[in-house]
């Protein structure tokens, strides 16, 4: 039964891909959009069945389809593994995926490559499902590469714009760097334990001398996929893709892959505390760096992108502290409100006719009531206002950080206060005061159709109540994930003492400070961010993202370009010279030989006679 169910879960998106990929051109937009949405929805239904099964039996399901590779030391199965972790991920990938598909049917309705878009979108979900359900590292790697490919296709979906193509390439190449880490991790793990299977690894793993290399390599892979320092710069650029893609990548799929992988391999990471420290520090630093950059961004989607990087940093902080279920909790709540925010920003962009600059927005509250309401709820959630979902998940991270390391706690708290500020800055600039765009845009302002607002409402509702799965005192999520996580940091949940209440209070006060400052600046004083040319001082540094892209260009791209041109001009000329001169020898010889063919029969006969004489002479010499 479980095999069929498993195959169905995976096959629905694949069928959607194939149908839209091969016959999409001949189908009407309505049909192809419906097929794609229904495919993911069907996967969602089977995922729910799996979830119910796991919830009732607590027994992971393992399905091995066939033996994939066989080596002398070990073999790799083409298998799938469903445990509590995979079930959770399946639920929100397919659930939020369905909503995003539904949203896209309306959002992309004017695009000429409608069917192609849904092909890629379904393919994306398919690979993500493989990533989370694979029973060993090699299977996970299939999905890992697959989502990389699909993100490339989707970010560069409007391929006629060269900037968008560059963004797609950047995402792909940055991910490739991380993927190298993944491969190194796989090789080292396979070398150490003679298996790549998660169950076998969990049972047989021990502290091997080079395990640190493996876990560090896995973490590098995670920084690539989940956009952490130093490999995060692709994520903001990835905003070039259509908004539903941003929502899918940021909320449910690709960026959560790194967190999923580390959680899946928690037993290995637990053995290498040094790597865990690195993860925690990088997570916290990324969180703060991204939050500061987000403060001055004017592109509505870029603010959200940096906010994702920042939130992911918090998740990595939790992972590094060994609080895996806390990170998972934040992944889930973040999926709800970030999807809602992205889709909401898409709705806004849709209404203003493609404008993404917040300086040309404002006053949309009157025109787009549903979008505003849902956006407001999600902003409250991401800023950490009780009792919305973001409050609980973020607070657990901060609590964990406080119990481990005060410095990390301060950094993370600062990042979350900044989150409240820049999110409300975004909200106020977009929806409050009066409209700052052109007259023509203003006349077209309208609320989006129901295919867009319905997912928004559902996601906003989830963002409101999603925190209930792990509230202090009654932590369903921690109980649920217990079989997956070996040494849980929160196995003995903190009793809620005075310290915890003070910390919670501080977090809430911080969120209110962020809200208040944003309100004073952008609603009371009606400030609008200045033009890009007029920024100065620290603002300029932030607006230019700490010049990190420029540093990368200087440190990596330029030397590679220099090396490349050196090899092209000098080394290639050398090799060309050698190879071509070898080619010239037969050519020259044949030119000389050609002269013998002068058509003079007398000469031919003479040569013939000489030849015969030579032959006879030779025969005489032999005998």
């Amino acid at each position, binding site marked *: 039964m479980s095999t069929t169910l498993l195959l169905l879960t995976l096959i629905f998106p694949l069928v959607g891909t194939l149908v839209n990929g091969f016959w999409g051109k001949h189908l009407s937009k309505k049909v192809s959009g419906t097929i794609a949405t229904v495919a993911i929805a069907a996967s969602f239904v089977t995922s729910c069945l799996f979830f119910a099964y796991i919830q009732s039996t607590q027994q992971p399901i393992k399905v091995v389809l066939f033996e994939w590779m066989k080596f002398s030391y070990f073999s790799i199965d083409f298998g799938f593994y469903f445990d509590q972790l995979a079930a959770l991920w399946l639920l929100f990938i397919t659930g939020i995926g369905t909503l995003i598909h539904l949203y896209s049917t309306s959002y992309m309705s004017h695009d000429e490559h409608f069917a192609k878009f849904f092909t890629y979108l379904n393919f994306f979900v398919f690979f993500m499902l493989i990533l989370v359900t694979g029973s060993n590292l090699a299977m996970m790697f299939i999905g890992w590469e697959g989502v990389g490919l699909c993100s490339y296709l989707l970010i560069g979906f409007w391929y006629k714009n060269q900037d968008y193509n560059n963004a797609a390439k950047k995402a792909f190449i940055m991910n490739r760097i991380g993927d190298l880490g993944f491969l190194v991790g796989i090789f080292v793990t396979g070398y150490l334990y003679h298996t790549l299977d998660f169950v076998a690894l969990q049972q047989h793993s021990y502290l091997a001398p080079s395990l640190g290399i493996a876990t560090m390599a896995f973490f590098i892979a995670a920084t690539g996929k989940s956009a952490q320092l130093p490999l995060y710069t692709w994520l903001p650029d990835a905003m070039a893709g259509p908004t539903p893609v941003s929502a899918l990548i940021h909320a449910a799929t690709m960026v959560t892959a790194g967190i999923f992988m580390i959680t899946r391999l928690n037993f290995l990471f637990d053995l290498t505390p040094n790597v865990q420290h690195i993860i925690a520090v990088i997570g916290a630093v990324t969180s703060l760096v991204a939050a500061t950059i987000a403060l001055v961004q004017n592109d509505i989607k870029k603010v959200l992108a940096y906010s994702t990087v920042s939130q992911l940093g918090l998740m990595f902080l939790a992972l590094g502290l060994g609080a895996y279920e806390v990170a998972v909790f934040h992944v889930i709540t973040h999926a709800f409100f970030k999807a809602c925010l992205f889709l909401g920003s898409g709705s806004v962009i849709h209404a203003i006719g493609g404008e993404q600059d917040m300086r040309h927005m404002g006053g949309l509250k009157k025109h787009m009531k549903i979008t505003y309401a849902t956006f407001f709820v999600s902003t409250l959630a991401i800023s950490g206002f009780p009792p919305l979902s973001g409050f609980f998940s973020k607070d657990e991270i901060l609590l964990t950080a406080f119990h481990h390391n005060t410095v990390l706690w301060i950094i993370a708290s600062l990042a979350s206060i900044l989150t409240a500020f820049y999110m409300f800055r975004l909200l106020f600039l977009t929806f409050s005061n009066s409209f700052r765009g052109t007259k023509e845009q203003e006349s077209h302002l309208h609320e989006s159709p129901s295919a867009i607002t319905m997912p928004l409402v559902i996601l906003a509702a989830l963002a409101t109540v999603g925190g209930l799965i792990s509230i202090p005192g009654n932590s369903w999520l921690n109980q649920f994930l217990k079989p997956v996580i070996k040494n849980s940091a929160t196995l003995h949940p903190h009793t809620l003492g005075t310290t915890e209440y003070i910390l919670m209070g501080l977090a809430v006060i911080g969120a209110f400070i962020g809200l208040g400052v944003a309100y004073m600046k952008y609603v009371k004083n009606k400030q609008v961010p200045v033009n890009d040319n007029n920024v100065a001082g620290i603002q300029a540094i932030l607006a230019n993202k700490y010049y990190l892209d420029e540093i990368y260009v200087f440190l990596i791209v330029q030397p590679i370009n220099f090396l490349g041109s050196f090899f092209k001009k000098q080394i290639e000329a050398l090799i060309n010279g050698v190879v071509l001169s070898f080619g010239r020898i037969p050519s020259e010889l044949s030119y000389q030989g*050609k002269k*013998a*063919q*002068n*058509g*003079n*029969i*007398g000469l*031919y*006969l*003479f040569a013939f*006679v000489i030849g015969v004489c030579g032959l006879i002479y030779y025969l005489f010499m032999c005998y």
Partner: protein
Amino acid sequence: MEQVLQQIGIDQYIFLAILLFCIGAFGILYRRNAIVMFMSIEIMLNAANLLLVAFSNYHEDANGQVFVFFTMAVAAAEVAIGLAILVAIYRNIGSIDIDKLKNLKG
């Protein structure tokens, strides 16, 4: 008559055949007229024939003389075709000087 043959001795025949063959070979190499070249070929063939006959008599075996008939038949056929080709060439370019036949030039 038989005695004469025996008195001459096989080596005299061989020398004569070599002489004839060389005359033919040099004729081919130094003459430019295609018909004369044909005649030279005939001389070479006849040199070979002479040897065949001489050896056949020497060994008292008729096989060699049978081969001579084959050679003469083939030579006749060859001349028939060769002369026909020469006629065709003459009609086309008005000459049978082989220095002018350079269509084979590479």
